[in-house]
């Protein structure tokens, strides 16, 4: 049995303000809760909250619920919500902000492939300046769930035989120019 009662002490209005002050975050407080975002989102039907309720959680300062949600990681950033929002709230950009915070706070769902891919991608690009799809997928799989590799074999072969899967590690010459600093 899960408790459905929320105490006000669980809310963090200060955090809500911070989110609203991030670039792209302005407007969270003007949300009508009309649901146009969740209605148009191609993935909301798989999400635990969906964009509308994420905004509701943010506004009311329920930080933990928002950051540990699956919703933010299922967002494929197609920006459909953003262009449909009658208040022009940059929902996708807010999602990005929440993802970053979830990573920093290590609140993201464990063994959930999306954040892992993101991290691997990020690390790879920091190192080489470019991503090499093959190696990226490999590392992602190894860290999340190696068995998915079996599922991928057919596709992998298809790509290979059509010359679309290069095993080369892409790398730029001037790697020194790449952003160094690690995430806090």
């Amino acid at each position, binding site marked *: 049995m899960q408790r459905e009662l929320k105490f006000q002490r669980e809310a963090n209005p200060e955090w809500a303000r911070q989110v609203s002050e991030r670039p792209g975050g302005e407007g969270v407080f003007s949300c009508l809760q009309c649901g146009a975002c969740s209605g148009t989102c191609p993935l909301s039907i798989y999400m635990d909250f969906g964009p509308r309720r994420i905004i509701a959680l943010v506004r009311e300062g329920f930080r933990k619920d928002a950051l540990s949600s699956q919703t933010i990681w299922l967002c494929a950033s197609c920006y459909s919500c953003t*262009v449909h929002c009658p208040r022009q709230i940059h929902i996708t950009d807010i999602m990005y902000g929440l993802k970053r915070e979830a990573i920093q706070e290590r609140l993201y769902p464990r063994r959930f492939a999306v954040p892992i891919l993101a991290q691997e991608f990020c690390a790879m690009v920091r190192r080489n300046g470019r991503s090499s799809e093959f190696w990226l997928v490999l590392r992602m799989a190894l860290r*999340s769930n190696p068995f998915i590799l079996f599922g991928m074999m057919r596709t992998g072969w298809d*790509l290979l035989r059509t*010359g679309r899967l290069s095993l080369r590690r892409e790398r730029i010459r001037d790697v020194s120019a790449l*952003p160094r600093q690690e995430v806090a």
Partner: protein
Amino acid sequence: MPAAYGYFPGCSLKGTGVAYEESLLTLFRLLELPLAELDDWNCCGATSYMSIDERSAFQLSARNFALAHKANHRDLIAPCSACYLVLRKTQDYVERYPQTGREIAASMGNGSLKVFQSVRVRHPLEVLYTDVGPGEIRKRMVRPWRGGRVACYYGCQMVRPYGEADRDHDPTRMDELLAAVEAPTVPFSLKTKCCGGSLTGTTHEVGVRLNYILLKEAARKGAQAIATACPLCQYNLDAYQHEIRRATGERLEMPILYFTQILGWALGGDRAALGFQRAISGRREIAQWFPKSPAGKRAEKEAYV
């Protein structure tokens, strides 16, 4: 000879989306539009990066802008919708959020924000529509269309807030360009719905389901092929058709083409040079619609890795 367009391939066009690059370069050659690849470009800092570390993501595209500025490109063509969006978003943020702008500038050493305004990030669809135009394309058409009906699939990111590739809710430019080469298109209500992007790799079932819906609706509208303008869309729609059949038992196989392949073919481009051999699904249709020339055969062998 007009000034060369800067060309920012992005990672995908060197991998799974190589056919997009091949057809794009061929098409621009046929149109006598010079295209110069940005030297030592780096990852645009796309979706995944954004969700880890926004500032670095911006710094990444900042470097690309600096390169484009150095090479004094007025236009920078980004065929991958994700690259296109991220680059434009960076410009937008520099514009709208002085603080972010200052941070990015600072990170760029010399720190001049001019580099952001000087370059115009453009999508090939918009370049071909506005700089060349359906009329000119029709004039240059040498091959009549022998293929089936096509559903134009624009995908999401190129028509979204930071883009200006086409109208965001009901884009029509790809349809108009294809009409110019007499390729019959079908009305496609899902033309701006998301293909799931990288989800096919992470939350596989969900990602594949999205593409199943796209294929099914395209077929229902009588389409025999789908035209795309983004490497991720093409990959997702192309690579999982066998799997969809296994899962649903429905036969939805159809070729997933790049609109640049269709235009390039109409303008007389070589089959191999347009990357048709790189298709995974609908190879039979492709063989019929875009028949091989003897010369093509050899070229194709070499093209394989």
